[in-house]
């Protein structure tokens, strides 16, 4: 198989899921025409009646998925932009998250909600949001946010097979940014595992989505100065892989957490808390965070947007500081 972009990996996985399981169907706004980012392009022709254009009704797209999933279907819903998902917040957080719990396992919800998130595309206030912290806060929903095309394939496959509601976050800036060679079928991957993507001895960087790529680039930059960074791809944001997080933090004793989401209440706080609680004595420096500033929306103007987004330069600067501590 040739190299695949993220969007190609998503499309191929949806195609395989539809082809492999009659119970799988897609629904969302404009999915028949292929969707804004063309993730579902060509699929309605191949699977007529199983790729459904829904009205603009985010809450019901998710609510319907709950009902259909209970009754043996495997809905894969698309919310066109993550910014629009909040209308369905209640369905995900107040209904789907507790379905297995309230029925004590008498029923379960094999459903996926896919949505493009993140900035860097000049989308401004309502097309650039990082939404993961709101949803990762909710026990009972798995939240996945891969970075590399191969992980998009294996984790989307795992999400569709999972008997629980999974929020699958696709960083829109990476859709066509990253390519990866892929051989054969996707690797069997388990939701809930982080991966050490780059080994290093001087400090550990935790990131996900676009920021994982920026962190890897930053690691290369500082390597030229003799600073050797470990980089961890979190992959799943709920449940967090505490074991790998602690192992990686202990290995270097210096921790830098990177996310595009705004600082306060972001996932970085949770990761820092896990490390502070369970690896305090292994730390050689205060935990550092590089995150979006506490400004409500991502601004439109490209210079302001760049100011908002963490990037390799900011990450490298923070990493140098931390290494020197």
């Amino acid at each position: 198989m040739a190299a695949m972009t993220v969007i190609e990996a998503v499309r191929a996985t949806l195609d395989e899921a539809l082809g492999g399981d009659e119970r799988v169907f897609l629904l969302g706004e404009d999915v028949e025409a292929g969707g804004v980012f063309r993730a579902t392009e060509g699929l309605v022709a191949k699977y007529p009646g199983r790729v459904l254009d829904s009205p603009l009704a985010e809450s019901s797209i998710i609510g319907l998925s709950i009902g259909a999933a209970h009754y043996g279907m495997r809905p894969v819903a698309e919310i066109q932009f993550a910014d629009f998902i909040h209308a369905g917040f209640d369905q995900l957080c107040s209904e789907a998250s507790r379905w297995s719990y309230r029925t004590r396992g008498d029923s379960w919800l094999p459903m996926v909600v896919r949505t493009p998130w993140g900035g860097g595309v000049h989308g401004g206030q309502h097309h650039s949001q990082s939404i993961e912290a709101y949803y990762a806060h909710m026990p009972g929903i798995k939240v996945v946010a891969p970075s590399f095309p191969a992980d998009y394939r294996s984790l989307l496959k795992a999400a569709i097979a999972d008997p629980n509601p999974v929020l699958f976050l696709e960083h829109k800036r990476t859709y066509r940014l990253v390519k990866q060679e892929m051989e054969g079928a996707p690797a069997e991957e388990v939701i809930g595992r982080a991966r050490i993507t780059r080994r290093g001895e001087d400090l550990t960087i935790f990131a996900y989505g676009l920021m994982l790529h920026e962190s890897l680039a930053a690691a290369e930059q500082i390597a030229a100065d003799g600073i050797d960074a470990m980089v961890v791809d979190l992959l799943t944001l709920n449940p967090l892989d505490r074991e790998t997080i602690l192992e990686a933090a202990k290995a270097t004793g210096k921790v830098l957490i990177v996310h595009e989401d705004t600082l306060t209440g972001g996932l970085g706080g949770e990761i820092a808390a896990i490390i502070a609680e369970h690896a305090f004595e292994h730390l050689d420096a205060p935990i550092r965070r590089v995150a979006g500033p506490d400004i409500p929306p991502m601004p439109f103007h490209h210079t302001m947007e760049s100011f908002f987004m963490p990037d390799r330069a900011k990450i490298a600067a923070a990493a140098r500081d931390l290494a020197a501590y």
Partner: protein
Amino acid sequence: MTQQISLPGSAMDDPGSEQLGLFLYQMQLLRRFEEKTGEMYTKGKIRGFLHLYTGQEACAVGALNALREQDQIVTHYRDHGHALARGVDANRIMAELFGRVDGLSGGRGGSMHLYDVSKGFLGGYAIVAAHLPLAVGLGLAARMQKEDRLALCIFGDGSVGEGEFHEALNLAALWDTPVIFFCENNLYGMGVRFAESLSTQIPKLAAAYNMPAVSINGMDVLEVYRETRKAVEHCSAGNGPYFIEAMTYRYRGHSMADPELYRLKDEIEQYRKRDAIEALKQHMMERGMLDQAGWEDVVRRVDKAVDDAVAFADASPEPGLDTLYGNLMAEPTDD
């Protein structure tokens, strides 16, 4: 103000005396059960929020009995009556209200979140109107699986102001899903008069989304039963959703905490004169289907069932905290 928007019904066999006897028994059961839960609340056996169904019995009994075994039900938080009318075990309902291990969800759900998947009773929902899209999803699954199965979605008049009401009606009609929307219009959403919260009439809204919509007397169990049977036939024939507004009245406050400052005692008395249980009793007596001794037998059997439920609930242990984390996530299966 009951307005008929459409559908003259097909000729329907009226229920025979045996079935009427069942309706009478069930309505009395719902009534007595709620009187008892109110009592248990006052005694501190039941905590939290408790919404009694007293006065609305004809809705649950008429509608639920019109369903078939394969059909699914989702409803709102005023759900004890619907569960009982579906045949969910009264003992386990009471135990759930007490928060005990033998309750339907072992004390996790409580009054507003009853469920019994084995009976197709998929739960009470305490977020107003959140279960409407869910019902459409159940209907969509039935349609995609080509199975003759429908979803009965019960909600209060308060739901019609929510966006999900409109989203769900549109989707149900657009995708021809077998869903019966059953609105129990008891004239109040908490302390707000229905007339002060909607600029139009409910069946007009439903009709606007292109589905048959009727407003019926929800204090008449036969009318509710007949109309819901019509709705079942309609859905079962693949004609998409059906909307019923059942005009009804709750005798008790919104919840146990309601001082009821928004209505006059006289209004309640007027509705009690139209009591659904009394009406069915009269109906049966006039036709020689029931005599005083028969009625007393119903009362006796119901009293026993309710007392048994309380005894069962009281004897059931409190859940241990070791159960707290169970079933947080479903485990992968091979299906």
